């Protein structure tokens, strides 16, 4: 393609790919649909919805000398089950968090890097510097049916601090694309509490409708 035709091709690509906003000056928004756990699954597992949040984050970019705004809308649901640890009743003995983020596809190219990450890489990004979970080690994989397909769930062990004491914990993490969104579900609970069946039920009970 000649250099003179390239800008025309790019501009047409933006129009046909749904990024007209980059040209017209509008904010370009990529919005995820929430992934939730069905009520019947919550009843069966004893988990409760603790909070539902929508994050609306923008970044400004300069395209062809013009200022534009990219907006990503992500959805997060946190479910918890109460219990006791170190003899103390706690509201959040186990946590199950499910996040949906837009794949952000432009011209057939998925821009959200998490769309094709392995679970381990997702975990590294999720743990970041604020999770409070240390000494994380892989502890096997299993397959669970979720949102119409078999999904690879990875388990990890680690430690966290509860009431000033170190507590061994187990994490379960799965990440996959579904109907235009990247779905990431992570569960964390004390190592001495077997939540595997409950986590599998929560994953099987996921509901999500994107696109």
């Amino acid at each position: 393609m000649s250099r003179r035709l390239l800008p025309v091709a790019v501009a047409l690509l933006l129009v046909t790919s749904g990024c007209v906003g980059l040209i017209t000056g509008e904010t370009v928004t990529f919005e995820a649909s929430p992934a939730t756990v069905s009520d019947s699954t919550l009843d069966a597992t004893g988990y409760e919805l603790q909070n539902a949040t929508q994050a609306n984050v923008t970044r400004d970019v300069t395209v062809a000398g013009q200022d534009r705004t990219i907006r990503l809308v992500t959805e997060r649901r946190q479910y918890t089950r109460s219990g006791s640890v170190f003899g103390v009743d706690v509201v959040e003995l186990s946590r199950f968090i499910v996040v949906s983020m837009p794949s952000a596809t432009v011209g057939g190219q998925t821009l959200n890097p998490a769309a094709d990450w392995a679970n381990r890489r997702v975990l590294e990004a999720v743990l970041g510097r604020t999770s409070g979970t240390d000494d994380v080690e892989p502890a096997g994989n299993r397959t669970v049916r979720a949102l119409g397909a078999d999904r690879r769930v990875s388990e990890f062990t680690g430690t966290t601090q509860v009431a000033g004491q170190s507590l061994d914990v187990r994490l379960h993490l799965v990440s996959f694309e579904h109907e235009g969104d990247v779905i990431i579900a992570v569960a964390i609970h004390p190592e001495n509490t077997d939540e595997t069946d409950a986590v599998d039920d929560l994953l099987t009970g996921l509901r999500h409708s994107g696109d």
Partner: protein
Amino acid sequence: MKYMPTTTNFARVVVGLVVVVAAMGAVATPAAAQSDQPDWAVELFEDMGPMVGTYNENVDASDFGFVAGQLQGENVNLVVDDPANGTEASVSFTLDNDLRIQELELGTRDDATIQMSTDKATMDRIIASGNPSTEFKNAVLNDDITISGIGTVSQVKWAVINIVGGVLQGIFG
């Protein structure tokens, strides 16, 4: 994912297309690489040479977390701002699959795919460090070095990457 246009206006699209085509035509012209560099740019470039050797011997791509996969194989324009006198220096390089710095040159390169932006104090800190790979990695992860795309799709991509990184780090609330 749903793309949600807030309004549609055919005339604005047409006018916008003309603006984009004109602007991108200008962008396609090779950039002046070194002519507008301040005096301290040469000193910065010369100081970076030995630092890059130490950096390349010690860099571990896995330390960069999820950003690593986005940096591998990229051509980088590094723009360094000196707010003390309002001048900017630029150097360019490529990052190989191990995130080692290759082809370090003074000035920008026309085939750059990403731009790293930082200030002179951050670069001075990295150059003076006995462990520049760790210092560089920390600067990237702490946003002392910010990364943006070059080219329309790349710009959107890096905006998305930067947002996704923040969302994932806050997943535990």
